[in-house]
């Protein structure tokens, strides 16, 4: 563990859907902290609340109660503390999806440049940064390929390049290796580890994939909306 300030701090976060008979308690008081440079896994049986927790950290789902701090900023304390959560996501959070979720109508390069444009970078600046990222992820030679013509591994690496474009400090990944074979999955995980170190980022990976456990710094085990294993080393 590092001694830097934590990037992600959750304190007694709960989340329930519906009321009365239909009430589902998806999270029943989750507290955790994740430091810069860490790659942590979020594990648990189906329906245990993994995606719910990831959505809350990603600021696309409002918790029912509790407190959340990201990068030192108090974002949730019974209610959202900030209005423009989208801008926060654009600047601070990178998402990596199970399916790559690239824009099918933009080529690899422009998929990456898009988030830079959205963040307000000029054309030339964004283009250079996109090229740099694609080279870094070793898909530079495919920069003008459309997503449909990329292999699964290539598409996932372009998606990672997009997630990294704005140098987010928090990267959230839901089953990022589900669509990849074990060799490719290993490469992607090694890459994420390297990123966490180099960019001082916190990476949260939801996964069922036992093959990648050895590449995680810590693992959080969820069961019925509670953490049963508060961050053991694998």
């Amino acid at each position, binding site marked *: 563990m590092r001694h830097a300030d934590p990037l992600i701090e959750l304190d007694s976060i709960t989340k329930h859907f519906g009321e009365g008979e239909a009430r589902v308690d998806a999270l029943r008081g989750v507290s955790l902290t994740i430091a810069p440079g860490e790659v942590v896994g979020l594990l648990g049986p189906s329906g245990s609340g993994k995606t719910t927790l990831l959505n809350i950290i990603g600021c696309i789902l409002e918790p029912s109660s509790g407190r959340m701090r990201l990068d030192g900023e108090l974002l949730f304390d019974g209610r959202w503390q900030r209005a423009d959560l989208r801008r926060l996501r654009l600047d601070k959070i990178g998402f990596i999806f199970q399916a790559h*979720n690239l824009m099918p109508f933009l080529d690899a390069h422009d998929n990456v440049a898009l988030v830079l444009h959205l963040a307000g970078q000029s054309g030339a600046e964004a283009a250079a940064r996109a090229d740099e990222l694609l080279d870094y992820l070793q898909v530079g030679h495919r920069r003008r390929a459309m997503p449909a013509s990329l292999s699964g591994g290539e598409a996932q690496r372009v998606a990672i390049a997009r997630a990294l474009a704005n140098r987010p400090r928090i990267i959230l990944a839901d089953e990022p290796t589900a669509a990849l074979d074990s060799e490719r999955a290993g490469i992607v995980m090694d890459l994420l580890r390297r990123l966490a170190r180099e960019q001082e980022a916190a990476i949260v990976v939801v996964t069922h994939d036992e093959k990648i456990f050895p590449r995680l710094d810590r693992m959080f085990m969820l069961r019925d909306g509670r953490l049963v294993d508060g961050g053991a080393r694998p």
Partner: protein
Amino acid sequence: MSLAWRDIRHNFGRFLLTCVGLSLLLGVVLSMIGIYRGLVEDALALVRGLGVDVWVVEADTRGPFAESSRIPGDSREAVARIRGVAAAGAITLQTVETLHGGRQLRLQLVGYQLGRPGGPASIAVGRGIARAHFELVADASSGLQPGELLRLGRDVYRVVGLTRGQVASGGDPVAFLTLRDAQALQFELAPPSARRERARGADPAASDTVNAVVARVSAHVAPTAVAADIRRWKHLQAMTQADQELLLTRSVVDRARKQIGLFTVILMMVSAVIIALIIYTMTMDKVREIATLKLIGAPDRTIVGLIVQQALALGLIGLGLGTALIFLVKDWFPRRVILSVEDAIALTAVVLVVCVLASGLGVRLALRIDPATALGS
């Protein structure tokens, strides 16, 4: 980087096909407007083509087009003597149907006095009428050619010249001939009936009847003043060119305008619904992309822009193709279709507004998409 344009380019074939479909619809809207303009233009073509200032017709009538009018031929002399009248001419109007080249030909005949107002304002091909009898100047839309012979009643006429754009309000081509010839055709009876009428003691001089007297006023004289004088002194109805045009527009065109106007509005509504459905479907196809955009932090403005820009592109390209299409086929319409720049601009504005409104449904859908849906598999 325009997301709207990139997405269009990615599915270009499909988008273009959609535009072509829409273009047919918008082309019909445009042609309806063009047909209406053509109708108005045709209705006024004859009245305007004579280039006169004052129309004198039978008292208490709104002739000679909206109602029938008969006045004595010597009314012309009376009108010519009114102060401010520079020239006056008597005219007759009648519709004839004759067989020419094996097909039925309908003509609006205008009989006029050579050298006086009431004749063709300009001759496009050939020459004007020079002889007192049996010469004809026809509109090119009749299909007649200079030099051709045409039987009207008991006589054969020679076509000596052609005019352009001279049609009656019903669309029939106009043909000019001398007043005497026209009167013979209209009022003189075939010999057996004429003998019978004479036997009854009817006055043969009554055949000097005309339908109207048209006049040009001198410079710096108001046609309204001349018309008022004629009404006051001659017990004849007189109206200015502007009155006559208004009368024709009201009587002949008004119902057609309402009919076509209503139809155009219905077509625009149909277009709006179709555009809305297309945009909605296009948005439905992009739910995952839109959720992803929201998730990675794109502002609503980017997402609304994507949808509205595509709606506008659809409308404009559809309208452009539709306009080109109607432009190519307009001359095959049986009656005149007039495409004016003003109408095209007005329709463009309407289409733009409709597109923005129609994309509302798609925008609503897009703004409701939960960014979390991007995370699912």
